[in-house]
Structure formats: structure tokens, C-alpha cells
């Protein structure tokens, strides 16, 4: 048996495996913390989605829980005014560059963004910020069984991780820099033209509607 440590989250005591990452420890205890980019098997989290903020006693500002290892006696708060404010802004920023129109999205009702909105009572529309998705990128439907809509991608990197570490295809990665950063193939060719094996594993891990199976395929099961 591996050893355990005692931590407090939002006033409740929990015993969690020593060495565990706080985000996953909390999720395992049934405490929800918004998250998109964290991958359990990955040794060091990318910490790029910036949604899993918590406050920890002894640390002055909110920190991302995916980069914290649990410690004996750690006292964690998942909801403070500052945490809520950061999560709200981070979430709104993601929405400002995301093709919303949920009704038309194949992931409607199974989307992580919708889940975060529900859990944290956030709106799924832009009120404060300016829409940044002014020019939509073409949708890639060249693969037989699935569609890639870059305008719905939130750059979590889940698909790239399975492509590199589970399937070991190496077909996709992050391309471009800054605001133009996106998931794409080498040379930005369509998936059909790339070395993608079209196994569909990446589609299964996409938390939003960026990678979705074509409808016939879903029906076939």
C-alpha cells in the first residue's frame, strides 16, 4: 500500500495518496475543479488552460492545482473571490475565441465548456469581452470517420498527447505561435493528406466539439 496524506479541501478532510497531484486527488475525492489540459499520466502538466486555480494556505496567490503535489496538512480552497474571478476571466477568454453556437455543435450537452459553465454558474456567451474569432478557419472533413473544426478547439492538447504517446502516430501537434497557435498536421495539410492513421483515438479525448465523429459513425457505434 502506498502511503497517504491528509488534506483539507473546502473544509472537508480527505486522505489522498502521497505524491499525487492536487487536481487529480481532488477530482478523485469528488471535488470538482474546472480543467481542460491536464492529463493524468503526464508527469508534468502543461498548465496551459489556466482554469484549475485554487488557493492554498501559505501561498499568497491562487495557483493551478495541476502543478501542485499534495502535502500532509495542505489546506485548499477551490472557491474564493480571487479564484472565481480568475476562472471566470480564463473561461471568458476561451469563449472569446471559440465558435459558440452550441445548438449546432455535435458535442452539445457533452462539452466540457458547458460543464464548467454549469458547475461555476458562468454564461456561455460573451458579454464583457470582444469576439476574437472574426475569421473562421476552414473545417477539415477529409478524414473518413471524423471532422476537425479548429474554430472550436481550445488548445488543451489532449488529442496531441494520445497521438504521440498512446497511438504513437505523430500526425498532429501544435503549430504556429501566439494567437495563431493551433492543433494541426506537419505542414498544415489536411488530415487525409497527413500521416494520420485515422484511428479516431484523438476524437475520443476531445473535451469540446473540435474533433467529432461523423454522424453515421456514431450511429454504427
Amino acid at each position, binding site marked *: 500500500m502506498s502511503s497517504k496524506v491528509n488534506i483539507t479541501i473546502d473544509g472537508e478532510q480527505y486522505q489522498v495518496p502521497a505524491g499525487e497531484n492536487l487536481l487529480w486527488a481532488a477530482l478523485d475525492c469528488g471535488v470538482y475543479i474546472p480543467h481542460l489540459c491536464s492529463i493524468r499520466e503526464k508527469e*508534468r*502538466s*502543461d*498548465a*496551459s*488552460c*489556466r*482554469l484549475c*486555480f485554487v488557493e492554498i494556505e501559505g501561498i499568497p*496567490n*491562487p495557483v*493551478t492545482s495541476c*502543478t501542485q503535489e499534495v502535502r500532509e496538512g495542505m489546506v485548499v480552497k477551490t472557491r474564493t473571490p*480571487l479564484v472565481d*474571478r*480568475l476562472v471566470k*476571466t*480564463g473561461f471568458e*477568454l*476561451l469563449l*472569446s*475565441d471559440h465558435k459558440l453556437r452550441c445548438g449546432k455543435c455535435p458535442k452539445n450537452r457533452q462539452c466540457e465548456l458547458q460543464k464548467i459553465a454549469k458547475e461555476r454558474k458562468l454564461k456561455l456567451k460573451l458579454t*464583457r*469581452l*470582444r469576439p*476574437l474569432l472574426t475569421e473562421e478557419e476552414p473545417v477539415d472533413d477529409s478524414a473518413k470517420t471524423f471532422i476537425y473544426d479548429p474554430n472550436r478547439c481550445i*488548445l488543451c492538447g489532449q488529442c496531441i498527447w494520445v497521438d504521440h504517446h498512446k497511438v504513437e502516430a505523430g500526425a498532429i501537434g*501544435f503549430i*504556429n*505561435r*501566439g*494567437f*495563431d*497557435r493551433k492543433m494541426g498536421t506537419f505542414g498544415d495539410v489536411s488530415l487525409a493528406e497527413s500521416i494520420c492513421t485515422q484511428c479516431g483515438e484523438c476524437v475520443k479525448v476531445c473535451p469540446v466539439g473540435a474533433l467529432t465523429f461523423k454522424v453515421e459513425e456514431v450511429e454504427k457505434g
Partner: protein
Amino acid sequence: MSVSQNFADLRSAAIEKLEAIKEKPLILVGTATCGRAAGALEVLNVFREEVSKHQLDVQVEEVGCMGHCYAEPLVVISNPGFPTLAYGPVDEGTAQRLVSDYLVNGDPCYEFAMAALEPNDEFPTFEDFPRGVIEKKIILRDCGLIDPDDIDHYLAKDGYAALAKVLEMEPTAVIDEIKDAKLRGRGGAGFPTGVKWEFCYKAKGSPKYVICNADEGDPGAFMDRAILESNPHQLIEGLIIAAYAVQAATGYIYVRAEYPLAIERLQNALDQAREKGLLGDKMLGSDFSFDIKIFPGSGAFVCGEETALITSIEGSTGLPSHRPPYPTTAGLFGKPTVINNVKTLSYIPHIMRQGAEWFKSIGTENSPGTAVFALAGKVVSTGLAEVPMGTTIRELVYDVGNGIKDEKEFKAVQIGGPSGGCLPESSLELPIDFDSLQQGGAMMGSGGIVVLNEDDCMVEIARFFLDFTQKESCGKCTFCRLGTKQMLEILTDITQGKGKPEDIDLLQELAEDIKLGSLCSLGKTAPNPVLTTIRYFRDEYEAHINEGRCPGLMCKELISYMIVPEKCSKLCDVCIGSCPTEAIYTRPDMLKAIHQDKCFKCNSCLVACPPQYKAVIRVSPPLEEQTEAEEGGNADEQ
């Protein structure tokens, strides 16, 4: 032979060589990048040609930069029997005269001289100017005065003496000395260097690495380049000492590839150090072995961030990652790594030679030593300056920089690079040190300082710097990728007269969240120019938003050009010819006026109007189309 004997031999040979050089006239031409940009290579050629034409026994050498960039090409001539003088700017004609009048005929041409290098009865020295009184040169001391391509010049000036001393000390004693000196990192954050070394020394894992960060990506910053080009051995010695202190076997110098001359001079310096046994296996006959590789960086600003720099050396895209773990625990190839800035490492030999107490006697208690600034913008004497920490901004701008150009009003300094802040006139007495600047909302950063005057629009300045950081964001994390873009859109709207009253609050909210929420310090500091301009120049934001007026008369959408009839001359029509859109016409009374709907606001007429008239002015808010020019009203004008 012992380390000290080996070193003593190298040193005395170097001194002998230099003494011999000094017995004859010597011409030093500053051919660092700043000198070259001003034509130093042509001047160098003239000196060489003239010297051989007159068959003189005079040595002509290339050196680096003394920091007086406004006076480049800069030349120093030492001639036995005369004070050693610096001349600048020297053009090809002056170079000819310096050879024929001075070196042939013995007239030192005081009319071209700037200052003498040592006290004498003939000519004032740099120390006799206000700038010289304030400046205190440690790491720039020899820049521009020694030949960077000849290690003997460095050796003759106490070079590598610190290394020889350190090689006979315990590594922990070296760390203690640097800790005691309270040296703080000059790469921006001001982290105590000795503490960093100690973390690395104590960290488990081997081999260990040391890296010199010479990425210098800040626009307008060129102090690291000047040091690399002018005195490469100083930082190489510092890097070797760092390696000895943490017991590293390999070092890297990460230089941006846009610095080809720096790379060339560094490579040459490394070769010479190896040849003399100062680098490589069992250096100076000690048990310590260490070597240095140069890694040309790939040009992204974010690659200067330490975690991104490390991934870049490892061969991946230079993207920052979350800290901790810090590089001192898990750095290059996952091993404990010290990473220090060029300037930080350049102080090391001086501290090890002269001791922590000496270092602490300069500067302030919590920021000992000096600060090196690249002075730019609307200031008379641009260039590099090294001043003690604690010098006020006023002294830097007015005494070192000789005040504001063209008799304009001072408005602000933008200090600390693109993520620094803008400080107003009321901050002129602020002492320059890590903590005071931070409190003012700016930061030491890399040491860039841009002086702004009454013609600068602070909203536009904020937009300009944010535009830089937004473009340089790597795009990995949400807050920096999208947050800076949001802020940039808002600022652009305001400068175009499309701002809304609630935009100022929104900018502030976003700025605070981006500072807290971003993954690396690029995002964490990017909002600084916006926050400080709102803090100190909120009225300018409000003028743009509420009145459609740009007080600096800079934002094109919010200004108009007009010709003041009282100043215009019937006899002159220069402006008409200068206008590319034929917007200027001659009125029936022969005075000139501008069709506002045709005017492109290119500024050509304002430049073209002869100085005795100065009839073209800018006004804000813009004139209604086709309004007669007389109605400038009470708008801001210039």
C-alpha cells in the same frame, strides 16, 4: 606548476606585450555593432590607409563600445607625450586629419576631441562632465578600451585573476562570497545570484550545467550585445567561476542569432582561452575541467525566459513551462542548472577579485552594485550608461543623458523593457533599484529606458508595447494568448477614437487577471505598460474616449492638420509640392489651406513648411470635414 604560478606567467607575458604596444602611438576604433552602424568600418579603413601612406609606426586596433553611442564612430588615440583622447563622431575626413595633423604633425586636434581618458593639464576628462561624476563603471570599464579579439588585453587588466584565485578556493567559499555580496540577477527579476548557485550546488543530480543568457530580446536593449562584443572574456571568466562554484562540467552561452559579431568575438575568445589553458581540461593546471559551447538562439523574445531557453537548447520549440521545478533543481536535460544573465556573470570576476565588501560599498543596501542602462528616446545623449544603483531617474535623464532633445517638455520614462512601466515626472526622484522601481509599477527588467516627451501619446505608447508582447506571446497559455489580444483590441479602439467609457475599467480588470493568471513572466508582466499609463496618465485615456482628443497629437484618427493663415506666407508654396494627395490648395488670398477630406495625415507638409513660418500645425480633436481652417478653436495644438 601551481595554478597561481601558471597564471602569473600568462599575466606577465600579457603585460609585457601591452607595455610594448603603449610605447608607440595607438589608434582604437570602436567597431561594435553601434559603431559599424555609424560607419566605423569605413573610418577604420581610412586610418589603416593613412597610416601606411605616411609610413607611420602606429598600431590600429578594433575595440568595442564605450557606451557613447550618440558619438559613434568613436576613436581613442594614445600617443606618448600627449593625453589619451577620445574623439567622436569621427568621419572619414576627420580620420585623415587625425593622422596627418596629429600623428604626423603633433597637433592633437582638440576641436574634434570629446574627452581625455586620464587627468591631465590639457583637456577635461569624462569625469569632469556631470555624466562622468554620476557614472561608475564596473562591467563597462574596459569596454571600448581593450581589444576583444586579443586575450592578452584582458589578461593585462587583471583578467582571469579572479579565476586563478577561485580555483584554489572551496566551491562553497565562492558561493558564500557571492551571497555575501548580495549580487542580484541582472536578467530582470533580481534574484540573488549566490542563493541560486547554492540551490544548484546542493541539488542532487549530475552532470550539472551553467548557462549564460545572452538572448537579449527586448526591443531597444543593447547592453548585453555591447558587453559581448567589447569584453567577451569578462563574462566567460564569470561563467567559468559559476561552473566551478556549482561544479558543472559544461556551459552554454545562449546568444541570439541576430548578433553575428558577438558570436564571432565570443568564439574567438573561447578559442584563445582554451589555447592559454584557461578553459577546458584541468584549467591552469588545477583539477577542474569545464568547457563552453555557444548556442545561437532562434530569435523569439520568449526564448529569453529561462525554461523556454532550456527547452530550446534541448532541441524543442522554446515554450515556457511551469516553475517549480526551477532550473536549479531540474534544468537542462532535467539536471540542476544555473542560468544567469550576461551582466550578472560579468560582475563575478570583479567581486571575486575585490571582495563582497567592496561591491556592497557601491549602490544601495538591497541592490548593491551598478545598473547598466540603454538610454534611448527623446534624450540628448543616447547610449549605454553604468550608474550606481540608487541613482535617481532625474540624474539618469538630465545628467547622464543631458536632458530632453529639442527643448521639449519631459513627459515620462518607459523603464524596464516592453513589460516595464511608464513613470511620470513626479517619479523623477525615484531611486533606480530593483525594489523602488517595482513599487512604482515599473521594473528593472533588462535595463532599457525610453525617454518620452510632450509629443508622445501615452495610450499609443501602451498600445505599442502591448503590441510587441502580444506578438511575442508563444500562445501556450490562455491568459497571455487571448488576454493580451483582448487588451490590444481595446487599446487600438481607444487610439482610433472608438473607445467606450467602461473600457478603462475593463483594461484594468483584464490586466490584473493576466498578471495573476499567466503561466510565465511574459504574460505576468505584459500588462505593466497599460497599468502604469492608466495609473499616471488616466486623463489621456479619458480625453481619447470622452472627447475624441489625443493630447499628444499622435493618434492619426484623432487629429487634423491645418495651416494657420497668420503664419502662412503668400510667397511660399513648399507645402503644396510636398503633399502626396493634393490636399493643399491656394486660397483666393494666396494663403494655403488643406482639404480635410483629402488629407492623409502623412505629416509631409509639417516637415516641409520652412522653419521661419511653421504654419502647419496639428489639432485635436480633428476638424470637421471642410471646416474653414480658421476655426482651430481651443483645441490642443502645436
